[in-house]
C-alpha cells in the first residue's frame, strides 16, 4: 500500500475530472490540495464532516441546459461541428463520425479511443465523439472525457469544448471563457500524452481549442478558437510538482490518516481528530480558493484563526511588504516594537497612520 493510499484509508479513491485537475493548477503552492488530490480523497465528504460544506454545487437547470445544448451540437453526426470548423477555416469535409461512447467499461472505451485516433491520425478527417483519455496524476491513472475531438485536413487535432454560456454579439463572460480554457488545456495535455504513447507527434494536437457556445439568446451554436498555451504551461508545472509529491509526503507525520472511517455512508471519525490531521498538511489559503476548491471554507477558518494576512487577499499582503502575520501588521501599524528586518514597512505604515489621523482630524 502506497503512502497516499494509507492517508486516504478505507475509502475508495475518487476519480478526477478535467475541472478538478485544472483547479489544481490554480494554487500550485498548496501542499494540502496536492496531497488530497494525489491520494484521490473525497474533499467534499471531508469538509461536510468538518462542518464547512463546499458551496459550489451546480443548479439542476444549468445541468439540463448544458446537456440539451450538447445534444444539439452533436446531432446528425456532428453537423454543427463540421459547419463551425469550416467557418473557422478548419475544413473537415467528409469527416467520418465515430461515437466511441458505446463501448462498455472505461478501459474498453479508452482502448477504442486510442484505436480510432491512431487510425485517424494516419488517414483522413474524423470527428471522435465521447472519447475517453487517460492521464497520470500523482501516480494515479485518471480517465478524462472531452466533448469531441476533431481532426482536420492539415493533420492537426483540435479539442472541441462545448459550453452552455452564450456568446452575445461576439462577447462572452471572461471568467467563464478562462475556466473553459483551463479545462480544455487538460484535454490537450492528455491528448498529447496519448499521442506520445502511440508513437505520434504530440504537436499534432493543436493548442488552439474550438470553443462552441450558444449564439446570442438562441440555442444555435457558434464557435471561436481559444489559444490555451498559457494554461498548458501552468498545468504542466503543477502536474510535474504532483509527480514529486514524495518530497511533500516526507515532511508529514508518518502515521497521518484522513480516513473518515465510513460506516456505510456515515463517517465515524471524530471531526476534531480529522481536523487536526488535516491541519498537519500545510495549506496555502487565499480568497481565490473560495471559487475553486472544496476545502476553501475550512482553510479560511484555519487561516483566520492563525492570523494569516494572505487570508485578506494577496494584494493586502503585498501592499504590506510581504508580512505574513496579521498580529505583526497590527503591531507595526500601532508603532510598537519594530524588528530590524521590517524597518522599511514599519516606517511606511507609520506614515499612513499619521496621514490617516490628519485626514479624519
Amino acid at each position, binding site marked *: 500500500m502506497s503512502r497516499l493510499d494509507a492517508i486516504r484509508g478505507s475509502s475508495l479513491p475518487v476519480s478526477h475530472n478535467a475541472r478538478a485537475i485544472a483547479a489544481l493548477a490554480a494554487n500550485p503552492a498548496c501542499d494540502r490540495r496536492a496531497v488530497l488530490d494525489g491520494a484521490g480523497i473525497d474533499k467534499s465528504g471531508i469538509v461536510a464532516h468538518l462542518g464547512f460544506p463546499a*458551496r*459550489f*454545487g*451546480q*443548479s*439542476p*437547470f*444549468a*445541468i*439540463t*441546459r*448544458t446537456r440539451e445544448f450538447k445534444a444539439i451540437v452533436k446531432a446528425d453526426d456532428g453537423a454543427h461541428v463540421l459547419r463551425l470548423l469550416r467557418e473557422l477555416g478548419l475544413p473537415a469535409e467528409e469527416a467520418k463520425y465515430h461515437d466511441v461512447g458505446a463501448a462498455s467499461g472505461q478501459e474498453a472505451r479508452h482502448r477504442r479511443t486510442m484505436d480510432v485516433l491512431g487510425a485517424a491520425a494516419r488517414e483522413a478527417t474524423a470527428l471522435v465523439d465521447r472519447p475517453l483519455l487517460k492521464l497520470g496524476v500523482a501516480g494515479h491513472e485518471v480517465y478524462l472525457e472531452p466533448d469531441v475531438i476533431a481532426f482536420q485536413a492539415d493533420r492537426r487535432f483540435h479539442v472541441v469544448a462545448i459550453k*452552455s*454560456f*452564450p456568446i*452575445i*454579439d*461576439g462577447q462572452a463572460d471572461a471568467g467563464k471563457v478562462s475556466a473553459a480554457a483551463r479545462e480544455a488545456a487538460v484535454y490537450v495535455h492528455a491528448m498529447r500524452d496519448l499521442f506520445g504513447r502511440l508513437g505520434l507527434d504530440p504537436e499534432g494536437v493543436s493548442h488552439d481549442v474550438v470553443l462552441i457556445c*450558444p449564439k*446570442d*439568446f*438562441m*440555442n*444555435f451554436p457558434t464557435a471561436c478558437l481559444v489559444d490555451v498555451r498559457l494554461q498548458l504551461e501552468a498545468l504542466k508545472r503543477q502536474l510535474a510538482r504532483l509527480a514529486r509529491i514524495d518530497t511533500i509526503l516526507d515532511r508529514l507525520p508518518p502515521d497521518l490518516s484522513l480516513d473518515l472511517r465510513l460506516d456505510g455512508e456515515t463517517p465515524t471519525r471524530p471531526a476534531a481528530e480529522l481536523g487536526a490531521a488535516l491541519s498537519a498538511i500545510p495549506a496555502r489559503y487565499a*480568497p*481565490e480558493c*473560495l*471559487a475553486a476548491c472544496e476545502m476553501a471554507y475550512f482553510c479560511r477558518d484555519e487561516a*483566520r484563526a492563525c492570523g494569516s*494576512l494572505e*487570508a*485578506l*487577499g494577496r*494584494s*493586502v499582503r503585498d*501592499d*504590506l511588504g510581504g508580512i505574513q502575520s*496579521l498580529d505583526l*501588521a*497590527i503591531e507595526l*501599524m500601532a508603532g510598537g516594537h519594530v524588528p530590524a528586518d521590517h524597518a522599511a514597512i514599519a516606517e*511606511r*505604515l507609520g*506614515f*499612513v*497612520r499619521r*496621514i*490617516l489621523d*490628519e*485626514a*479624519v482630524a
Partner: protein
Amino acid sequence: MSLLRSFLTVRAVRDGRAQPAATVRHAHLSAEPLVFIPLRMAGEAAAPLAAMLGTDRAAPRLLVIANPRNRDQRFAFMAELAELVVPYIQKYAAQVEISDTKSAYERCLDAPQILVPNPGGIAFTRLIGRSTRFRATEGPHAVPPPVPLLGRWLTFLHERAEFAGSAMLLAMTDVLAEHWVTGLSAAENGNLAAQLAWIDPPEGMTGPQAALLAEDPLRSPPAGPDTDPDFDRHVLQPLIDRSAAQARLHEALRGQLEPTWNLMWRAVDLLRGVPAAESAAGRWERDRAALARQSASIAEGGPPPGRWDSAVAAARRLSALEGARQSYEASKAFDDPLVMADHRAEGAAFAGKVIAVDADRKIIPPGKKRMVARPLVNIQTSDPVRLPPGRKLLSAARPKQGTVLMSVDADIVTLQINSGMTKDATLPAPGEIVCYTELDPAGARRPALPDVAETPWTHGGPPPAYVPTDEDAQEAWS
C-alpha cells in the same frame, strides 16, 4: 488595493468592524431611487426568473415567471417589467430645462436612479436591455411598445454606468466598498449581506461574526442575479415542474428576494447618513444632461444603438471613459481628505507647511520676451515625495491656481505658481499647511478624433449607420 486601503483592512479586522474610507458620500443619492433585484434562471443567457423592484421600501413589486423557459411568458415578464420601469424613467426624462451656461444646453430637472445589489446585477440589466431593445412592436413575435423602450432605456443606463461618477445605475456593493473598507477580501465583499454585516453589525455582534452568518445562503439568499443551486434543486425545480403551484412559487421567490430588498434599503439609509461630496451635484448634472440627450434621441425616432460600436465611436467612448475616470478620482480627492490621504500614501500627492514665499519673483519664460510674475513657494514636508520636477500640480484649497514642481531637496519642495493669480486670489502664506497633487479634476486633454464621416481606411472607413433589421427585431429567444 492601495496601501491605505490595505491598512484600513487590517484595522477593520483588528476592530471587528468596517472602517470609513471616505468622509463624504461621493455618489449622488436620489430622493426616490428604484431598487431593482433581478434573478436569472441558472444556465440561461438572459432568461429572467423573477425580480423585486420599487421605489417604496414598504411596497416592493414582485414579478415572477411561472416557466422561465417559455418564450411567451418571458415576453409577458418583460412587458410587466417595462410597465414599471419605463414610466419611472420617463417621469424624469419629461421635465427639461435649458442650462444658464454660456453655451446653453438641455438638461432634465432630475434623473432616475436604479440601484442593483452587485456588478452582476448591472451586467444582467445590460442583457435585459440588449435582448429587448431591437424587438418589433408589430409583425411576428410582436411585443407591447414599452418593451423595446425598456431596452433603449436600460441600454442607455448601462452605457452611462460605465462612466465613473455617473449615478443613474449603481451596484450597491461597489458604492459601499468605495465608502467603507471591510475585513473581507475583494471577492467576499461582493456578497452584500456579508459586506453590510461588517459595516453595520447587529447589536451584540462583531462584523466577522455577523458576516459568517450572512454568508449562509439559507439565512441570506444570494443577492442575484444567480440563485443558490440548492434552492434551485430542492425548492424551485419541483415548483416549476408542477405548474399548478403558482402561489407557492411566488412565496418561494419572495423568500429569496425579500432579505436582499431589506439589505438594499438599509444600505441606502447608511449612505444617506453620510453628507454628500461637493462635486457630486456637478456629476449628477452631467447625468441629467445625458438623460435629456437620450430622451430627445428617442423622441426624434432615432434607431436603437446597434450591436457594435464603430471604430470612431468606440475610440471616442474609450477616451471619454478615461477622462471621466481621471476627473472622478481627482474630484474625490479634492472633496475628501481621506481620499487625498490615499493618494498621499501612493505618492501622487504630498502635504506640508509653507516656509517661504517669493511673491515678487519675475522671469522671462522660455520663448517669451516679457517678464512675468512666477512666484516660488517652498514647502517643508515629511511625505516621501515621488513626483518628478516639471510635473503640474494642483491644490484643493486653490483649484484654479496652476503650479509646477521645480525641485525636491530632502524635505523641501519648491513650487512655481504659473497661473490663477487674479486680483482676489491669494498666494500660499508662510506657516500655512498645504497639500498639492498631480490629480486634475478637469481630466487630461485628449487628442481630437476625426469626425465619423472621416474615419480613416485603417479603421474600416466611414461606418454605415445602424439600420434596424427584421432579423434583429425577431431575434429568437430560446
